[in-house]
């Protein structure tokens, strides 16, 4: 019961939130996540037009302790993060690469504006 209360006070239901970085490269959005202690086969990535979700199990569990208003101690086994994207993307065109503990996801933006030809002189 006590563990349950502590879990609820921590990040996302006991999952560890990874460090991440978002970059707008014009035609695409590139998001990287730092995922130490993670193997490529343990990573799950889900994307919609508006959101990106990453879940990854760690090779070993990590005991985290922090002193604040209350002392908290939790064992983490997974990373989890859901991001609301700044612009709509085409999830089918997304690519992902994992190297040295960094997951890099490239999401092409949906082309929402087209150029209009102007007639007349």
């Amino acid at each position, binding site marked *: 019961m006590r563990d349950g209360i502590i879990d609820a006070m921590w990040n996302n239901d006991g999952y560890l939130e990874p*460090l991440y*970085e978002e970059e707008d490269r014009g035609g695409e959005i590139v998001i*990287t996540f*730092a995922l*130490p202690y993670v193997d490529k086969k343990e990573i799950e990535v889900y994307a919609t037009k508006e959101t990106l979700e990453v879940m990854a199990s760690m090779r070993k569990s990590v005991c985290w302790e922090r002193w604040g208003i209350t002392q908290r101690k939790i064992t983490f086994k997974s990373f989890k993060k859901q991001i609301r994207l700044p612009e709509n993307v085409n999830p089918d065109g997304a690519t992902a690469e994992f*190297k*040295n503990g960094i997951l*890099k996801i490239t999401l092409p933006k949906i082309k929402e504006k087209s150029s209009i030809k102007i007639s007349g002189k």
Partner: protein
Amino acid sequence: MERITKKMKDIYKYYTEDTGYTMEKIKIVEEGIQFENPVVVQGLPDVGLVGTIAISYLVGKLNFKEVGHIESKLFPPIMVVHNGELKNPVRIYSNEEGLIAILSEVAIPPSAVYPLAEALVEWFEEKDVSLSISLTGFPVANRLDIDDPSSIGVGNSKEAISRLKEAEIDPMLEGFIVGMYPVMLEECKKRGIIAISLLAQCFPSYPDPEAAAAVIRSLQRLTKLDIDLNELLEKGEEIKLKARDLMRQTNAAIAEMQRNTEQSMPIMYG
């Protein structure tokens, strides 16, 4: 109009009283360190936590002794616990050969940059420091594709640049560095202390132990220090995870500093 003037006065009062260049705001507490012309190395939280990781590894691996700490109301109200012992997050270490190391486990807020740099350099002068070396990183966009990060150096005088050449460390030819270290380089220059910043290619927002290893390799060439880096690279993943919270704090401090400096960036031409 009156209200605006009052607000400006309030801001000025806050600035001068709480964040002004008063040394009393920074207190260096040490156990009478006395070496003949010591060398001081610094690792403060910065891009990729390169300096913090490097100095933390160095003091642990070479069994440096804790000889002091730095206190300030400008620092966040944080104390750290190591092996059950409550410690100040900004600490001073030294070894028997007269090498002093300054390590911070807390992000230095922008308001503390000038007062801390000035207080430290004044202390360096008092201790007859012969060389100040700061360890940091320079963020590169393609860091993911670099397996073996390289490092460069910035010197504050002809003598400093010549030391870099002797150690076969490439000098930074063009660019700018932001944060605590450029202020320290300049302060050291004013007081005639040779100062060098070593910078390794790094991730801007993720703890980067490989970059820390690269910067230590350059430090070894500069100081003839002998240190085995295998453990640092082997424990890379553990470090990345442990340093996660400090990296978050540091990213926030860097973002604030960037907001303050963006409009005053120099024009680059060459």
